[in-house]
């Protein structure tokens, strides 16, 4: 499978990573970031559990994050 980025960032000098790609949809980026921050900063789960599930998810999906 190709590993060449399939979407270009708004800023042509930036790397094609999730954050730079989101620049194409600023309002979507704000909404996503707000949810992500809330998810990590509050809630009934401890951080170890959250990070463990995130890591396992990333392994299974071959995600680089």
């Amino acid at each position: 499978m190709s590993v060449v980025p399939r979407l270009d960032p708004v800023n042509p000098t930036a790397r094609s990573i999730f954050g730079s790609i989101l620049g194409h949809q600023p309002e979507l980026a704000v909404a996503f970031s707000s949810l992500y921050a809330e998810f990590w900063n509050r809630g009934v789960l401890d951080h170890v559990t959250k990070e463990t599930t995130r890591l396992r998810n990333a392994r299974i999906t071959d995600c680089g994050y």
Partner: protein
Amino acid sequence: MAMPVIAKVWMANPKNDKNVVELQPHLAPFVAALQSRALEAAPGRCAELISMRVGQILHLPSSDTALEVAVGEWYASPDLTDAEKVVLEITEQFLVDVHGVTDEMFAKLKEHFTTPEILAILFHVALCDGFGKLNLVTHLEKNRGAF
């Protein structure tokens, strides 16, 4: 943080977001805002078509509308545009095996949509996939995915 107006409007619909509110109330307004933004940003009928196809693949309850039938047979349907068929093709591959999404599929997307539109389409696919599965595994309200 105050709930965004758009989230209030979205959540006022009794069909929307009840599941997430019940599970994690503090996340609800943020989830609603994100879903609303993704819905608004997706071009044309893409959001509706994606929601339908995700629901079909996850075996969520469906209707017998002509559009629902067309989406189920998208590859041969005369009622869908070429652009919509490309969106449904990548939606299907995203759910069944995301590693099977190809450069060729992206090239076809780029023939019909701008980069911001492609981003919105993929966000909508990801949200429908994630929240549809969340509803499925928790046996909560059996509505159409998250939308």
